[in-house]
């Protein structure tokens, strides 16, 4: 056994989950058992071929300097929302709003987990466990076993305003693990916002159960800290005629692995997942997506766009699995990169696996440079080269940003992007 592998095995043997009430203890020890069986991911794992997981699995995270974003307006600033703040993975009640919102029940894992029964017991670790097949996701099992906190949100009606999770990063050696559960009862609707770098290293799992006719919107802006690392998972299960929409904007970050595992289990459900990433220099961004169609007439869209320069690396592993009987499936997947120089790299592995005969599935993946003709067109109207290039970047990312349904939130994301591009050009 190689040294790294032996160290990892020893680390798993020595691991013991945080104390808690009956339900959460069961879930944690079950997860740890699963994790010990599968082991931590290594470079040789097929699922980690393009991304080296070492810094995500070692006992202590590499240091990550805190990045000053004082020159920037707060993310989602203009949006009326209920704010819940975590600093380096620790809940900050003073900075947070009262978790009171009509039609929404909000509790913290740290508190609910101390009780012996809680509604989240049927969800916590359940979708994560289901999502371990056919591909293992050890970092998610590690999260279920070790997370001390997170938010548990049960939505029974239409939430009056978005719930906004803010992840501040203040310590250069913080190692944060958060686990959120979101349960939307039939017909309920919620918008969840997330932003911030969170920690030097961040491991986050979010399990989302979208019942029949419910609607879930998720918009996330991952922080600008250059040196932070993150491994995040979204596990979602969709009921009949439900809707799931998720968009992620990422800029900077030395390593980001965002996994999404979405299962359409009820007929006529819709799942859209999109990402826009801006990578510059030491930047490795990996989107790994697995969408399973298990019911009839469902629609799924994966839209991933990456703009890379100065040696930045983008990875996309995306799969659509259509189970037997999932007739009239409409699946779409696009992953594209815009390389602003010759040093950057885009690695893509798009996959379709279809076991039904009456389906419509398409996928595409492209890599290219900026369209010189369009650039000249803009410049010929007086727009300086850099500004014209920034407009082309916005144009390239537009299809992903259009997946955000709320116009005010989409505008905030757009203006943030414009701000980042303008700063970068100086």
């Amino acid at each position, binding site marked *: 056994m190689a040294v790294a592998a032996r160290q990892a095995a020893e680390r798993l043997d020595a691991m013991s989950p945080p104390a808690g009430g009956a339900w959460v203890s069961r879930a944690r020890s079950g997860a740890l058992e699963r994790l010990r069986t599968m082991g931590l991911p290594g470079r040789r794992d097929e699922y980690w071929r393009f991304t080296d997981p070492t810094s995500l699995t070692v006992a202590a995270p590499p240091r990550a300097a805190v990045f000053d974003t004082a020159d920037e307006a707060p993310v989602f600033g203009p949006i009326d929302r209920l704010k819940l703040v975590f600093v380096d993975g620790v809940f900050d009640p003073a900075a947070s709003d009262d978790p009171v919102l009509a039609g929404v029940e909000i509790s913290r894992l740290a508190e609910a987990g101390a009780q012996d029964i809680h509604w989240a017991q049927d969800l916590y670790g359940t979708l994560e466990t289901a999502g371990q097949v056919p591909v293992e996701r050890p970092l998610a099992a590690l999260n279920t076993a070790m997370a001390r906190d997170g938010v548990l949100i049960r939505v029974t009606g239409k939430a009056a305003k978005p719930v906004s999770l803010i992840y501040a990063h203040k310590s250069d050696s913080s190692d944060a693990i958060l686990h959120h559960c979101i349960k939307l009862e039939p017909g309920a609707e919620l918008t969840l916002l997330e932003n911030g770098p969170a920690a030097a290293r961040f491991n986050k799992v979010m399990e989302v159960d979208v019942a029949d006719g419910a609607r879930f919107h998720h918009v996330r802006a991952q922080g600008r800290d250059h040196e932070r690392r993150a491994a995040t998972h979204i596990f979602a299960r969709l009921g009949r005629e439900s809707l799931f929409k998720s968009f992620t904007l990422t800029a900077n970050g030395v390593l980001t692995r965002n996994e999404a595992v979405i299962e359409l289990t009820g007929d006529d459900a819709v799942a859209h997942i999109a990402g826009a990433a801006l990578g510059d220099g030491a930047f490795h961004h990996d989107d790994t997506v697995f969408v399973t169609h298990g019911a009839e007439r469902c629609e799924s869209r994966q839209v991933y766009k990456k703009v890379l320069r100065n040696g930045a690396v983008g990875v996309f592993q995306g799969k659509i699995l259509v189970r037997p009987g999932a007739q009239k499936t409409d699946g779409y997947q696009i992953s594209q990169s815009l390389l602003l120089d010759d040093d950057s790299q885009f690695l893509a592995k798009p996959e379709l696996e279809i076991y039904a005969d009456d389906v419509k599935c398409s996928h595409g993946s492209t890599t290219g440079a900026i369209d*010189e003709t369009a650039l000249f067109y803009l410049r*010929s*109207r*007086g*727009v300086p080269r850099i*500004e014209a290039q920034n*407009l*082309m970047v916005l144009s390239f990312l*537009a299809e992903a940003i259009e997946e955000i349904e709320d116009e005010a939130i989409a505008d905030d994301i757009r203006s943030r992007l414009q701000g980042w591009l303008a700063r970068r050009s100086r």
Partner: protein
Amino acid sequence: MLEIKNLHVKLEEDGKAILKGVDLTVEAGKVHAIMGPNGSGKSTLSYVLAGRDGYEVTEGGASLDGEELLEMEPEDRAAAGLFLAFQYPVEIPGVGNMTFLRTALNAQRKARGEAEVSAGEFLKLVREKAKSLKIDADMLKRPVNVGFSGGEKKRNEILQMAMLEPRMCILDETDSGLDVDAMKLVAEGVNALRGEGRGFLVITHYQRLLDHIKPDVVHIMADGRIVKTGGPELALEVETNGYADILAEVA
């Protein structure tokens, strides 16, 4: 105003000579037309003046109001007052037409040391100009040229021209792909901008556009040179007899 002197240009890619000594002067307030058969170098001339990559100037030059054009970046030429209406306007998904127009207008004003136009002023201005070109609010909101018909794209070019108020306008085959009604609209838009000391260089294959935009001077271009210059009657001659007679006569 626009002075082109002995301009020689070859393609960077294969070294093929395209312009072989073009001499042309467009005076302020005048409309000059360039006609000529396919491959004579008309479009190349417009691209070289606007600053597109891929061409190498081997001899001669061009200036606008005494400023040497060919050493300037495309955006600086625009700020100096040059405008090229493209034969094939480019589609830019995800960038709204209004955003584009405002960015361009303010970039030019900034380059000239003028104050930027406020959102309110801009809106008023663009609505007024759009109306006369029959460009509706929806077209203004849509991404630049995306899903526009051929006629809409050309009208959009003229709208940009009207908003940017250039000193010197080059129209590269603006009539291509237009039906008669669309051509009239475009011509009206151009005619509305005539005068005020503005120069025009109208590049076209056919005389019909010149029925609507009456030129002061007509040039015939062939094999990279201006081979004949005359009044509006020269365009009619082309229409009746084709280029063959003229080319034979100057050969």
